[in-house]
């Protein structure tokens, strides 16, 4: 039984000139304790996908089609009350950089206590406070700083507090949106190690949304690559890094400088990321693709399964 | 120190916005209903003011006999007569002229002074900035209406003096706004880049700063003119305006003093106030719409 299953999910944003599809037919599932990296550039739809998993789409966004299941229970007909019960207990969210995810006028400890009391996972204020302080200690923040306000924390501490807050109601799934962006390298390394350690000790499932391939390589078992609102490739982390299939994935990997390669920078990807309001026809990557051939501009590539976990949506594959 | 721009219409005017007005802004503005209504209202009073100059046929003074005063609207006097038997409609159109003149002239003074002070204080830091801003802060702190009253009592009550008094008490909010905008602009990367390329200061102000603050200046100009018109009306109502010219405020002052309200002369009490309200509202609508158009939130969408 999977913890979370997304099937054929599409999400639209209503805009002045009609609707923009931010996520197109996304499907994936996560088991208990698994860790998936959702990789994509800005505007590829990855944050929208994350928000939709908790029913948090902005007012102009809506699920156009598809299903989200938590432990085999469909959420598509959920009322706001049902969503509210699901949030933070089944899955919790860690925001980018942690900077703005904390209410500036409320004390850290109170913000961690709040969901426990609302969801009734702790019944008394004392017990909840006790647990909040334990959680803070768990992420490396001493009890003496629990009653601080967010601005008194450093960037790294805020991100840690955000993680402690996400653990408040013992969710099985942690959705982390760019958990290591906008903080310094050393702090980023600390946060990555903290997440890895929490996953190990608590059996947490992680959905890491990032554009940083390094974070994915170090933290995830499986990788989903998104391009222009579509999933173009998904595979195990080794499958992606050692045997990438989609030309976009290949070039993306090539453009990341690393120590364990040779010096120099890859060619990168020519052209610019497409706009979602007016996406290219056929394969959305074809205007930038070095391997483009006849069907790419007109036909949308179907997803083909190459190996157990390795699925790619590209005309180069699956046409025997 | 927290500063909110005082003595100006409430609105989302902030110094921190980055008015990247692009092509099509005017077209987008023109499509806003508030702008359409605002421009319409403004046009109405321009026409009224001009018409008043052409059609002073009915004359102002018609000898105050008991029969000719406080006449309700009739075919002869569309809007009735006042306590001296004058035609209310004629007075109204003459008042429109005064309001527009004061609005434009006082605003011009305030905008020039405010922009200059703001630009100088923001661009040339140091003692000049300290002196200018201390003075601006003091201006902002002192409540405007009592200040205007006191000044008017001192410098006199001709139209010119009124314009001067209102203009010289309305620039401080503008100065503060422009300064904070210039302060943030001069740290912006494109100004830094211009400096790094070697662009001289005057060219930076002309090419890189002025076009950026222009939309902010325009939005505030409209709002200041609304406030100036209100100030003139209030001053005239209090009997501190130019009593030789029939303005809307003066009409209301006369109505108030002659007990028009008590005599039920609604045709005399209502129109001048409505005129002020509609003219000010027209300007507020336009200013509000420009501000909306400039606000960063809109830019993001």
């Amino acid at each position, binding site marked *: 039984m999977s913890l979370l299953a997304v099937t054929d999910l599409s999400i639209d944003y209503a805009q002045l000139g009609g609707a923009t599809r931010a996520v197109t037919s996304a499907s994936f599932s996560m088991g208990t304790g698994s860790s998936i990296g959702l990789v994509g550039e800005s505007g590829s739809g990855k944050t929208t996908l994350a928000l939709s998993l908790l029913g*948090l789409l902005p007012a102009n966004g809506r699920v156009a089609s598809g299903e989200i299941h938590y432990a085999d229970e469909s959420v598509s007909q959920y009322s706001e009350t049902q969503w*509210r019960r699901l*949030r*933070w207990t089944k899955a*919790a*969210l860690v*925001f980018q950089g942690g900077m*703005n*995810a*904390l*209410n*500036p006028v*409320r004390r850290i400890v109170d913000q961690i206590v*709040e*969901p426990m009391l*609302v*969801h009734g996972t702790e019944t008394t204020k004392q017990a909840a406070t006790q647990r909040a302080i334990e959680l803070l200690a768990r992420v490396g923040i001493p009890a003496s700083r629990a009653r601080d*306000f967010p*601005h*008194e924390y450093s960037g790294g501490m805020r991100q840690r507090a*955000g993680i402690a*807050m996400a653990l408040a*109601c013992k969710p099985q799934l942690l959705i982390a949106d760019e958990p290591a962006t906008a903080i310094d390298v050393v702090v980023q390394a600390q946060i990555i190690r903290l997440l890895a350690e929490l996953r190990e000790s608590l059996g947490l499932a992680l959905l890491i949304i990032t554009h940083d391939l390094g974070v994915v390589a170090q933290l995830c078992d499986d990788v989903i690559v998104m391009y222009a609102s579509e999933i173009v490739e998904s595979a195990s982390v080794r499958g992606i890094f050692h045997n990438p299939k989609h030309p976009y994935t290949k070039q993306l990997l090539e453009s990341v400088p690393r120590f364990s390669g040779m010096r120099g920078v890859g060619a990168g990807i020519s052209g610019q990321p497409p706009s979602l309001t007016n996406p290219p026809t056929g394969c959305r990557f074809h205007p930038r693709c070095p391997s483009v051939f006849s069907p790419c501009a007109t036909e949308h590539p179907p997803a083909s399964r190459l190996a157990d976990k390795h699925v790619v949506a590209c005309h180069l594959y699956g046409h025997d | 120190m*927290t*500063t*909110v721009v*005082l*003595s100006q*219409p*409430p609105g989302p005017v902030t110094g921190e916005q980055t008015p990247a007005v692009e092509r099509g802004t005017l077209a987008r503005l023109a499509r806003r209903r*508030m702008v359409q209504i605002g421009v319409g209202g403004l046009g109405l009073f321009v026409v009224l003011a001009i018409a008043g100059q052409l059609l002073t046929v009915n004359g102002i003074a018609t000898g105050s006999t008991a029969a000719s005063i406080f006449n309700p609207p009739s075919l002869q006097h569309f809007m009735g007569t006042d306590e001296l038997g004058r035609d209310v409609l004629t007075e109204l159109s003459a008042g429109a002229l005064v309001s527009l003149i004061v609005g434009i002239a006082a605003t011009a003074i305030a905008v020039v002074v405010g922009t200059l002070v703001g630009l100088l204080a923001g661009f040339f830091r140091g003692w000049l900035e300290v002196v200018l801003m201390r003075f601006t*802060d*003091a201006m902002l*702190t*002192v*409540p*405007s*209406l*009592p200040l205007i*009253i*006191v000044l008017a*009592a*001192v410098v006199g009550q001709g139209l010119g003096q009124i314009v001067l008094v209102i203009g010289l008490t309305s620039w401080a909010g503008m100065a503060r706004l422009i300064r904070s905008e210039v302060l943030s602009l001069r740290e912006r990367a494109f100004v830094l880049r211009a400096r790094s390329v070697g662009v001289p200061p005057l060219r930076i102000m002309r090419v890189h700063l002025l076009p950026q603050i222009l939309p902010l200046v325009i939005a505030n100009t409209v709002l200041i003119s*609304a406030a100036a018109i*209100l100030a003139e009306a*209030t001053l005239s109502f*209090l009997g*501190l305006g130019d009593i030789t010219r029939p303005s809307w405020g003066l009409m209301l002052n006369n109505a108030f003093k002659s007990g028009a*309200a*008590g005599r*039920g002369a609604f045709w005399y009490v209502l129109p001048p*106030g409505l005129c*002020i*309200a509609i003219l*000010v*509202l027209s300007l*507020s*609508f336009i200013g*509000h719409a420009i501000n909306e158009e400039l606000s960063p*939130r809109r830019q993001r969408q």
Partner: protein
Amino acid sequence: MTTASRISSRIGQTVLTLFIVVTFNFWLFRLLPGNFTQLLSRAGALDPAAVASLKQSFGLDKSPVEQYVLYIKNLVTFNWGTSYVSHQPVFQMVFQALVNTIVLITVAYILTVIIGVALGVFAGRRAGRLADSVTVTTSLALWSVPTFWLGLVLVFIFSVWFVGLPVSGMTTYAATYSTPFDQVVDIGLHLILPTITLVISSIAQYTLIMRNSLVTVLDEDYVTTARAKGLSSRRVLWRHAVPNALLPTFTLTWLNIGIFLSTTLQVEVVFSWPGLGSLIFQSVNQRDYPVLEVSFLTIAVVVIAANLLNDLLYPLLDPRIARR
């Protein structure tokens, strides 16, 4: 900046502003049209001895610097002179007027802020919808209506169509009260129309600021976090969004006292409320300069004090400024 140094720097700024205003006042009232002594004697039946003593108490026979020192000395010792018109001590007149003004504005201001903020929340959480644009448009319209005219219209309505509520003064003329309670009721009745006028005229600023502030806050990550935590939308609004959105409005309530006093001045004139506004109005028309000068200074000092109070109180609300 530490709290202590922040406070002392704010007090320093306040003193500087006071200094500028006082100096401006001194200079302004010596620019009066006509010779000062001429004005003094013109002001009424003053015998030469009285003129001489007035001259001396204003220090008109001394150098400008000495005059200025004397001016400040008189100010701080409440030696504010006598009215040209009523010959009463200015201090007494201004003090009584100030008390009456405070009676008028206290209730009106509290109502204005509460209703304004409530309307702002109402519009802000419905941003972009019809209820929002109606609220914003109405607010702008209310702001555009001249206060004195609104008062006139109310006077008109209540003296022609709905006779009953008093439309003028603070108490019924020549009334005698059997109990102090009756007097309070009488004043209360006289308060109703001025209060309504004040509230309607002033509400827009709070509504619009609160609305804009709330719209901004509702877009912040921490509000999304609060929703993600499974809180009810009511709790998200009142516990997370509104407290943050209130901060700029709080500041506004103090900084806008000057604007509110300007509005009050008009209301007092229209409804003949014997407060500072009426006093200023009368002394301008009667060219009663000592009274005018002190009344104006009093209003300025009240506003400057409110500004200072804001800067001292604000940190208590916003923890970001309170510490470090």
